[in-house]
């Protein structure tokens, strides 16, 4: 096979991987502060996408819809934190696993009944035509996704490093107890992380919708991939998710081509189990030493 075809597949897969990475980044945000993740994150992506679509249908211009969707996603994130996570964290139990799944299930049902069960197209300001870069076809939409993913992650990283609130976030991530002793409210910081994570989910929804279409099940396949990316990269790996996301996406494309499309996911899954066995804290995660 010639290089051009390999390049085409690697690039197409990797661009899809950027979306995994963005959702995975949402997992990282909440894991950093609270060691919990929202297993219903996919439903957050989906409901926010539907909400943004409704905004567009109501005639809200595109530039206003994006922040609108983002705020909506952040509010949902706060709801998840309040209803599903806080109690479990206070009791140091793992109840959040089930509660976040359950809340996701409720969002799913609500979306089915409010917006219908069908997949719908999501308009995009970018033309669906493709441009050629070194002989590889890429649509403008895909470029927008890549730029959007990096932009939102970059913004949040800057926020964490440059603002007082962001530094509180980092402090709680590093050592929750010590941060509390310094007068930083861990509860507020966890709320902030869930709001950010919800906002990231909404942005992911808006970015990916023109490609995936908007429907109740739009994110169910994405979310498992994103979870894989987050864990394999390391739940504290920051931009590591982008690399792992792109690698996984490209690997799937290539496996599909060379091994057979039915086995698309198999090599990735096996590598994943092996990677975890070798590096339990993730490829880019901080390896800890056993302490007593």
């Amino acid at each position, binding site marked *: 096979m010639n290089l051009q075809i390999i390049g085409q597949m690697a690039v197409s897969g990797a661009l899809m991987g950027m979306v995994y990475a963005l959702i995975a980044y949402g997992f990282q945000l909440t894991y950093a502060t609270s060691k919990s993740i929202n297993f219903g994150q996919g439903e957050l992506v989906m409901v926010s996408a539907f909400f943004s679509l409704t905004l567009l249908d109501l005639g809200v211009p595109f530039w206003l819809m994006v922040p609108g969707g983002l705020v909506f996603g952040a509010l949902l994130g706060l709801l998840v934190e309040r209803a599903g996570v806080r109690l479990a964290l206070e009791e140091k139990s793992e109840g959040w696993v089930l509660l976040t799944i359950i809340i996701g299930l409720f969002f799913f049902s609500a979306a089915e009944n409010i917006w219908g069960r069908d997949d719908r197209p999501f308009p995009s300001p970018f033309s669906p035509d493709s441009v050629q870069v070194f002989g590889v076809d890429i649509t403008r939409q895909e470029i927008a996704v890549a730029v959007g993913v990096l932009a939102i992650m970059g913004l949040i990283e800057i926020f964490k490093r440059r603002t007082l609130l962001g530094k509180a976030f980092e402090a709680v991530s590093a050592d929750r107890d010590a941060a509390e002793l310094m007068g930083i409210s861990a509860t507020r910081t966890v709320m902030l992380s869930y709001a950010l994570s919800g906002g990231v989910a909404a942005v992911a929804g808006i970015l990916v919708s023109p490609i995936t279409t908007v429907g109740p099940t739009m994110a169910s396949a994405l979310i498992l991939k994103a979870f894989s990316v987050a*864990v394999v990269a390391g739940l504290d790996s920051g931009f590591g998710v982008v690399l792992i996301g792109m690698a996984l996406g490209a690997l799937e494309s290539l496996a599909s081509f060379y091994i057979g499309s039915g*086995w698309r996911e198999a090599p990735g899954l*096996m590598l994943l189990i092996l990677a*975890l066995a070798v590096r339990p804290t*993730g490829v880019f995660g901080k390896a800890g030493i056993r*302490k007593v």
Partner: protein
Amino acid sequence: MKRLLLIRGAELALFALLATVPLLVANAYALALLTLLAIYGILLIGLDVTVGYLGQINLGHVAFLGLGAYAAGIGVTRFGLGMPSALAAATAVGLVLGSLLALPALRLEGPQFALATLSFTALSFTFLNEMEGLTGGAQGLSLTRPPLFGHDLSPQGFYWLCTVLLACVWMIMRNLLSSQWGRAIEALRDSPIATDAMGVGVYRHKVAAFALGSALGGLAGGLYAFNFQYLQPQSFVYDLMVILLMGVVLGGRKSLWGAFVGASIVVLLPNLLSNRLIFQAVSGLGLLMALVSGIRGLLRKTTRPFQALAPIVSMGLLVGGGLLVANTEDWRKGIFALMLFSVVVGLPEGLMGFAARFLVRLFRVAPAPLPAPSSLDEVLPSRPADGSTLLELIDLKRHFGGVKAVDGLSMTVRSGQIHGLIGPNGSGKSTVVNVISGLYPPSSGRMLLRGKPLPLGSLYRAARSGVARTFQNLQLFSELTAIENVLVALNGVYRSPLPLVLLGMARAEERHARADALALLELMGLKDQARTKAKDLTYGAQRFLEIARALARRPDLLILDEPAAGLAHPDVLQLIETIRRVHQRGISIILIEHHMDVVSELCTVVTVLDGGRVIAEGSPEDVKRHPKVVEAYLGQTDRDREAAAPDAPPLPA
């Protein structure tokens, strides 16, 4: 006894009821639901091993259900197996693949374990879907239920088979989980490090637990195949897995009854909710219960406001929504979600956890009395202290990156001594202990116990060769009671092979073990708190429990890592007294301690470390006056030490 009778009685009543239902009710649908209930009961009991006892989020169980189902299905259609051999094949597939998956999954915990098992589910789906030649792929595999010993089973007959198997699984698991095995599995959930350090192999038990749970998944799969008689790979995916997980948690973890109740919920609820009337009755009742228990909890301040209000709001939504919505079938997922939400928030211990507390109060069942403690001479027979060389460390080094925590240390511990190990913070005391006990392998050097090399870098093997230790930062099995903590570590009592344990024929051994454990608790002054969970003990009591647990190993060498840290003065006095009594039984001790008075009081020899090297050794009085020791403790001018002990993170305290 009364408690045991009640529990056995309830179990008997349940199975008697299950067995007679088909005689009383002729409805085929009811029978179908009950059959599925029995199958799911087995499935969830298997899942509870990992989710409840190991405390891990296992997302791979559904794959074993599927693989077991296909093993049975292919066995029947391709190889003409009969029902017993097909079910055995299904169980074997679960067992073997479960052990295989346990190998990489072993090192993982939390989200990583969840992901590894989830990936296995996805892989097994791909495998079943793609191996069209073998499994029929997406088009499914149709099979007919083979006869059992030459008899074609009617639906009733098959139901009875499932019920009998459930009863067997129930009995076996009860015996296993209440045995040393069950305790070990729970122990490694709370502290894998301590489990290893107590000579109970984390590896072995984790693999065994996971493989056992998976084998039950496979067995349930075999029954599933014969129940539905049509298999498709897409049935065994994440969606079903989530439902199973909910079943276990809703029913109540670490409980056979819980698994059964969970199975009833996940089997019956979705199917009954289609009936609008039942839905309204259930939601109305739910709201009432949420209101009553919520308001009661608020008034008595036993529940947090959120815990009281959230179920009320959610059940209220359900009742209100139920009246507004024209077609409840459209909202079935939402309805299910609201109900689950109320239960998970309102009853975090699951329905059975809640019911158990309630029932105990209702029947005022006293726990079974403890046996009389064994004689201490029997538990810790006196040993002669001959002063021979017990432990020899020769030029031991342990480096963490550039930090030389232990840097060429040589020392000898003689049998029957209390050997003190002291030194300023960061002098390498704890690292020495961690290297001897096998937490870290040494970077170089030799360690000999009674002249034989000590296993390197394995807590488990070091413990097995006669070294027992306590931990400066407590590593108790916090969910286990005090006596259970000791039982886990108890060495040389449990001899019955696994099959006898499974059949419940190891009771005498268990009684003996309890008596022994109680003797050790008595030695530590904890006899009256034998049934208190370790996490509920006072800090001082927890320190003593650590020592009791280490003694249960009947060690040659006992290492006490700062046992007096954080103790109040009266407790320190008691500690000194207790250590002395332990010592009198001829057990050699290495004592790491900051309190100089404790050291002076107990130790015959003291080794002083600084910068990972020995700077002095001798009697407590001698080393106190040693100029290097004085300098190390008082003078902060030693350049070597500053270089050796920067505040680098890998140095454990």
